[in-house]
Each structure stands twice: as structure tokens, then as C-alpha cells.
């Protein structure tokens, strides 16, 4: 406990912690969650829109997805997110022919015989069907039409109504595999991307009532707060961790190695101190926000502990993970490489999925769960089991990294481990 207090004091007095704390608060302010920019209001009947939701209805998903595939096939540019980032894929001629066969099966006379057969490659244009944006027109019945130059026959696309969901899923899986995965046509994406339907007034009202009864207002606000705080807590805690470990290397590494304290106690105390420090500004904001909501909704109408529950359940594992990455890789290499590793993880995690996971679910190893909405309580309750599993996994990864850190630190103390990153540079182990 004494060691924990000492380490905590060291972190709290460091310039990097003050900057990180200021960064966390500034980020919350710029994102409009501290103070909150919106309040929960009861939906009024007759509003123009209450938003949209995924229908999950194959009858709606299939035509939309097929048309989208056709449009992307027509310009030979496919939107994918294989590693979370937007990536446009162009198919080579062989794959393009295969994709043409998929399109042919999805459509009713997609390309008339006298224009182009799948696999029939006209020599004049090297087999590619080149259409610019102005040449595509959406018809009233939902089909697409390619406007060809004057005197030539237009090519229509109409979805084959006899297509079964099973066969459609198989074809789309083939198309997704051909595109390298992560396309709009993968099973996960398709259900969210296509077949969206409007939310009705009754549904919006039911969601509001659930927010009042289940979330007691502050739960919904805390979720939105957690959504944004996760983004910053998934990255910033790595900096104080790296800073602290590199400071040891400069000043006291050799003294630390010879102390009687066990490696486990020392690393645990350091880890807990770092996590406590980064959670302090978050907890202070939670307290202030709770006070603001007491003024807005009244003490009796809110869950006074909601922000703190979300801080520990939602945000803490994220902060633990980024702190553990900082501790482990800095102890191992004595370089700031942990920053690059955490930044990469953050990048892939945050930009991964192009927002489709916002209040629609959570991946198993997603370090930053998203719920970018005030409310949507039913959606939250639907993915809650996955979220609990995810938070446990992320916390376990953090614990595992801390255990590895103890092992590495212990080995270094005994002179059993020397990781030389660049022997000829000055960036090398202190041993």
C-alpha cells in the first residue's frame, strides 16, 4: 500500500499526467458530453422522423444489397473495411468475370445476351464495363439503369425475386471473399447496411419509456459519456505508463533492480497507481455530471450511481488495457514503442467497422465499445451479454500483460533478459 501511494504520488505530480488529465477533460468538452449538450425528451407524435433501424428482413436486404453490388461492379470499385480502414478494391479481369457470374445469378436478365455475357470479354475495351457516375440512374421501382451513349441499348438491373436467402447469403459470401473480406456484403455488415426501415412513433416512445424506467435518465447519459471517454481512454493512458517506465531507465533503474521488494508487488503497485491516476479526472467528471443531472431531472428521477457504474464496468477495462500495453512493451524494450502499438490498436479499433458497431453490438476484442446515441436502451440491452463478455476479455488481456510485465521485469533484475532493439544506437536496455 505504501508503494502504491508513492507511485500514485509520483504519477500525479508528473507533467505528463497533468497534460493527460487536461486532454481527457478537453476531449469530453469538445465532444459535447461535459457538460452534456442534450437532454432526454419525450418524442412528440407527428414528428418528421424518429430515425431508422435495421429490419433484418431478407425481402428488404436482398434487393438493396444486390443493387449495391451491381453499382460497385459497374464501376469496378468496391468499398471494403478489411482491417477497419476504408479500402477501395478493384478486381482483376478473372475475378471480375466471376463477380459478373454472381451478378447474373442475382438478377433477372442483368445484362442482355446481345450486350455482354458473363465471361464474354469484348476485345475493344479489354473486357471492362466502364461507367462513370453520371451514367447510373436509379429508377422509381428501385432498380438501376446504366445510361449508355446515344444509340446504344441501356443495361437494366432488376433483382431476381425467386432468389432464396440461403443462396443469396452464399453468393454474397463468395463476393466478400473475392473482395478480401470486410465488404458491405459480409454477413455481419449486410444486416446493418441494407434493409433499414423508419422507427415509428410507438417504437420511439417505447425506447423513451425504457430509458426512463431502466436507465433512469443518467444511465443513458452515462453510456454516451462512456462512448466518448472510451475513445480517449483507449489511447492516452499509454503515455504516463511509458513515461514512468522510461524515467526509471534514466534515473533509478539500477537502484530499483537491487531493492528487496518483489517484482510482482512493484509492477502491480505501479499498474494500479497508473490506472487510478487516469481514472481520477473521469471520476471527477462523473461526479460533476451527476450533479448537473440532479439539477436537470430532479434527484428522485435519476440513478445517482449510474456514471460511476459505467466508469468501472465500461471505461476501466479500456484504461487498464492501454496502461498494460504501455507497461509491458516499455519494460520489455526500454523504448517508447508501446505508443506506436497502442496507437495502431486504437486506430483499428476506433475506425474499425465504419460506425456499424455504434449501438449495434460489440466485437469480442473491441477495446473501445461504442454507443453513440442518447438512449437506444433496447439496443444496449440486446448487446449487453456480448458487452459483458468483451469487458471481461479486455480486462483479462490487461491482467495477462501485467503478468508478462512482472516476468520481464523479474528476468531483467536477475540479468537473465536483455532486449537490444538497436545495438548501435543509444536506445537500448539499461542493463
Amino acid at each position, binding site marked *: 500500500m505504501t508503494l502504491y501511494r508513492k507511485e500514485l504520488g509520483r504519477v500525479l505530480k508528473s507533467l505528463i499526467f497533468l497534460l493527460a488529465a487536461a486532454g481527457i477533460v478537453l476531449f469530453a468538452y469538445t465532444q459535447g458530453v461535459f457538460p452534456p449538450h442534450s437532454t432526454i425528451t419525450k418524442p412528440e407524435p407527428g414528428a418528421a422522423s424518429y430515425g431508422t433501424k435495421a429490419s433484418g428482413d431478407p425481402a428488404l436486404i436482398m434487393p438493396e444489397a444486390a443493387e449495391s453490388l451491381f453499382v460497385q461492379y459497374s464501376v469496378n470499385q468496391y468499398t471494403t473495411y478489411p482491417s477497419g*480502414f476504408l479500402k*477501395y478494391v478493384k478486381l482483376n479481369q478473372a475475378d471480375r468475370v466471376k463477380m459478373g457470374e454472381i451478378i447474373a445469378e442475382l438478377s433477372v436478365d442483368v445484362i442482355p445476351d446481345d450486350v455482354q455475357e458473363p465471361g464474354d470479354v469484348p476485345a475493344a475495351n479489354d473486357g471492362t464495363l466502364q461507367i462513370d457516375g453520371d451514367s447510373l440512374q436509379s429508377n422509381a421501382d428501385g432498380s438501376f439503369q446504366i445510361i449508355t451513349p446515344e444509340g446504344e441499348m441501356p443495361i437494366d438491373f432488376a433483382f431476381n425475386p425467386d432468389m432464396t436467402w440461403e443462396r443469396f447469403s452464399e453468393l454474397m459470401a463468395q463476393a466478400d471473399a473475392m473482395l478480401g473480406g470486410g465488404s458491405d456484403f459480409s454477413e455481419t455488415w449486410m444486416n446493418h447496411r441494407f434493409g433499414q426501415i423508419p422507427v415509428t412513433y410507438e417504437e420511439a416512445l417505447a425506447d423513451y419509456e425504457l430509458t426512463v424506467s431502466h436507465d433512469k435518465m443518467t444511465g443513458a447519459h452515462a453510456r454516451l459519456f462512456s462512448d*466518448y471517454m472510451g*475513445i480517449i481512454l483507449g489511447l492516452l493512458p499509454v503515455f504516463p505508463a511509458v513515461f514512468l517506465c522510461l524515467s526509471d531507465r534514466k534515473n533509478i533503474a539500477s537502484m530499483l533492480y537491487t531493492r528487496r521488494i518483489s517484482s510482482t508487488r512493484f509492477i502491480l503497485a505501479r499498474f494500479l497507481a497508473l490506472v487510478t491516476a487516469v481514472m481520477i479526472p473521469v471520476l471527477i467528471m462523473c461526479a460533476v455530471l451527476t450533479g448537473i443531472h440532479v439539477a436537470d431531472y430532479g434527484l428522485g428521477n435519476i440513478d445517482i450511481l449510474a456514471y460511476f457504474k459505467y466508469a468501472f464496468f465500461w471505461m476501466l477495462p479500456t484504461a487498464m488495457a492501454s496502461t498494460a500495453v504501455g507497461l509491458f512493451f516499455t519494460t520489455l524494450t526500454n523504448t517508447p514503442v508501446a*505508443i506506436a502499438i497502442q496507437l495502431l490498436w486504437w486506430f483499428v479499433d476506433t475506425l474499425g467497422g465504419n460506425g456499424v458497431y455504434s449501438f449495434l453490438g460489440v466485437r469480442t476484442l473491441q477495446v473501445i465499445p461504442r454507443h453513440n446515441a442518447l438512449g437506444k436502451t433496447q439496443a444496449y440491452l440486446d448487446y449487453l451479454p456480448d458487452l459483458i463478455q468483451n469487458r471481461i476479455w479486455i480486462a483479462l488481456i490487461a491482467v495477462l500483460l501485467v503478468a508478462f510485465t512482472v516476468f520481464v521485469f523479474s528476468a531483467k533484475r536477475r540479468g537473465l533478459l536483455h532486449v537490444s532493439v538497436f545495438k548501435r544506437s*543509444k536506445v537500448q536496455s539499461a542493463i
Partner: protein
Amino acid sequence: MSLYLSVVKYNLRFNLLPHIAAALGLMLLTPVLFGITALDAMTVAYPLELSLPFLGVILLTPVYTPEQDPGILDTVRVRKTPHLLICGIRIIIAVVLMFILICGFVLLMAALESEVSIAHALASYANAVFLGGLGILASAISGHAVIGYMVPVLYFVMDLMGSLGSFTMFSMMRNGTMDGKWVLFIIGICCIAASVWSRDIITKRK
């Protein structure tokens, strides 16, 4: 002249090697993450604005790191060659390397049929100088490279998740324009100059 060449040689050998390796690592990772083949004028902005600007953070931020240990700084101060001259040469190497790497990357994109021009390369370079400038200034003032890494990363995240108006780094991605790139470039250069100045004050005070 031989002195300068000697500084460049030893700097490459003892200081820059890991950072050049990290920069090359970033350049190898970028096509894997974003794809750089046959991109149109709008989508080329993704690798150029999201990824390549980190070259500035990687190469510029650690310029003062070797002498941030007080003992080493004392040794350097008594040397005949001015410490700031050494730092100046390091900065020039870093900005030239950044330019070469970004232009090389843009040329590669052009060879892979992406719609890129010299303007795209300069816009990406402006972002890199800006982020690197923030990093080197924060590192010079705080005396620690990790703080120098944190400040530009924080700026990047805040701009990416919201928008910092006229000071946004992502004008190509968001609007398809080069708006504000000159401002960012000038701020970056000013930050680099301010870092040298602050380093000079710190060196003389100690």
C-alpha cells in the same frame, strides 16, 4: 563541410536508425491498412492525411532526446561544436527525410494508378511538418520525448473525432480541398523554430 558530414553520419548511426526503421514500418503498414491502388482524388486523402503525417512525429519529435539526460547535456555543452548546430542539422535531416519519404510514397501511389498530384504530396507534408512541429516543441519545453509524442497524438485524435475548424488536418478527406494546409505548415515551421529557441534557453540556463 566535413564537420557537417561527420555530424550527419554519426547522427544516422547513433540516433536516427530506430526512427528511420519506424518510419519505414509506417510506410509499409499504410498500404496494408488503406490500400493505395487506383484510388480517386478524394480517397487518396485517407493514407495521406491519416497515416503519413505521423512521419513528422516519428522523425522530428526525438531530435532533442539524446541530450535530454542532464549528464549528457553537460558533456555536450562543454564541446566546441555548438549543441544547437547539431540539433539544427538533425532537424534538417528529419524534414528532408520526411519530404523524400512522402514524395516517394506519392510517386508509388501514382504508379499504382491513384489520382495523386504534387499538391497531395505537399498537403501531406504540411500535415507531417505540423504534427512533427507540435511534437518537437512539446519535447523541447518539457524535456521528455514521451510528452512530445503525446501532444501531436492528442491533437490528431481531437481533430479526427471532432473538427478543429480552420486548423483541421483533414480538409482533403472531409471537403476534398487543401484549405488550411499553408497555415498548418507555417505553424509547424514556427513550432520547430520555437523549439530551437526554447532549447537554447534551457541549455544556457542549466
